[in-house]
């Protein structure tokens, strides 16, 4: 995962937990922080 990469948000963990994102063939659990932000395109 590098800055500017496009990913697809699959779902969110319960109780406001991390996001599951798909990045090409990989799927990741990611907790956004100040150093790691995901921008959503409407």
């Amino acid at each position, binding site marked *: *995962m590098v*800055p500017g990469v496009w990913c697809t948000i699959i*779902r969110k963990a319960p109780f406001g*937990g*991390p996001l599951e994102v798909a990045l090409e*063939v990989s*799927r990741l*659990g990611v907790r956004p922080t100040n150093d*790691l932000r995901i921008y959503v395109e409407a």
Partner: protein
Amino acid sequence: MSAHTIAVVGVPNVGKSTLFNELTGLQQRVGNFPGVTVEPMVGSLRDGSTSLTVIDLPGIYGLTAASEDEQLTIDVLRGVHPSIPRPDVIVHVVSADHPSKCFGLFAELSTLGIPMIVVATMVDAVKARGGVFDDITLHHRLGVPILPVVGTKGLGMGELRDALFSHAAVTPQPVDVGSSTVEARAAWARTILDDVVVQGRADSTTMWLDRIVLNPVGGAAVFMLVMALFFQSIFAWAQPLMDGIDALMAVVSDTAAQLIGNDLARSFVVKGLIGGVGSILVFLPQIIILNVLVTILEECGYLARAAFLVDRAMGVFGLQGRSFIPLLGSFACAIPGIMSARIIPSYRDRMATIMATPLMTCSARLPVYTLLISSVVPAVTIIGGFSLQAVVMAGLYVLGALSGLLVALVLKRTMFRGAVVPFMIEFPPYRVPSLRSIGVTMIHRTRDFITTAGTVILAFSIALWILTELPRTQPDASMTELQQQQQQLDNSFAADLGRTVQPIFAPLGFDWRITLGVLSSYAARETFVSAMGQIYAADVAESDAPLRDVLHEQIPIRTGLSILAFYVFALQCISTMAIMKRETGSWKWPALAFGMTFVMAYVASFVVYNLF
């Protein structure tokens, strides 16, 4: 070129540890969990008289570290690590199944000037889904040998061994990606992969399972079910085995007692040595079951999903999702709990978790709680039909868990304060766990426990024997065996110690006998019950009932509650301290945990004693 040291390097979860096991035959854990190799393992590879050293390094994504584990790998590769030599050859492990995450690292490794061999794992998974992995084109593009392998089946391992012994590794030309940014390396990697890999069908089984396992409702239900099974199995399945070990040790003790004539020698062998060895072995069933369960959860791919589900809840206390497993395991026993903290890649999170584990209510506290609650808490029903004794018991569990999490929170905000390591965890595809890996884990952890914690436990057991059994008292023949034991204890160094130390515990309501019971349980909590039995000369061999009645008569309720409060917090387990030292590499941390929990126990006990 003479190659002596070979480093196995790659991004997390591409099968490095599996490859390492197959290559060296070393017994090392293999986990389907990103970052499972949190400390380097070293093995050797022999061909006749020639021997190569192979190092399995923690996974990295590049030569800029995001955690302490990654820093270790980078230091080794750059040749600046104080104890691990710079490798002569790099075996760069890439996943043919997930190549896009692997080849950016090759661009960085190529700048080190170290001969390399690229090993592509999981080629079978790509082909099974109708994909293509063109290793010949990749060889021409990278200029180093490319060896496809299937690590779990041992396919391609012979070719890899031959390549290492025939010095087939080649120093690649440094890859010029235009700039030093991650984006540039990723863009370069994509141009390589376009020519080399054709992805097959998506892994539909994993996607189907994840729709349930990661669903906010279904996932929470599966999580609760798995954890209930996990918790129950540690308690229920281990108990018959622990009882069996106890029975076996009793037989050994009886046999030794009959064979040894000298009173002092018999006491030393039976109570000091056999008792000490028994206190080590009795933990093994819980350790084995916990590690087998954790390995199965890791290898099948569920642990990464579980960490994802509970990350938010753990985040409230400054921890991350991975901390949940060690803390949960500590409800059975802190020892395997602390050992399983290895799955946490962040040093600060791992240390905060380890420091919190002794406060989880382990199974050794249970006999103490049961005895004291039944002795001093009235057996009455309160509002809602609940038993007051059961409510107190549940309250002690909750109090222990909350205090552990609060300790972690305080430590994360003070001693282990630092930049937040972003929580990012890859979901590996679901796999059937390897029996070999489970077996290796079991043997490795068991051996580790016996050789490190076991020796310390035995030493303390002998020290405790000296305190309680010396100086010897001439037994009064008219007394029962238990009364003779009480007489011995009354005149022992431990009794002197109890009377000397008692003023410190006087504000908590402890007399010298309770003080002695508490002190004797500093080797292991559960010894409190037998120590109190000896001290009060009540027959605890057949049933706890007589001791319970004696304590009910002799210990005021506020003193009983004060002792309970003390046991909720105090770190009274030499095994835990020994394993804490083993996992943190220093006595500083167990000493700090001991001091911190003693202060917490003392204050809580003092407050409770003066409140009631």
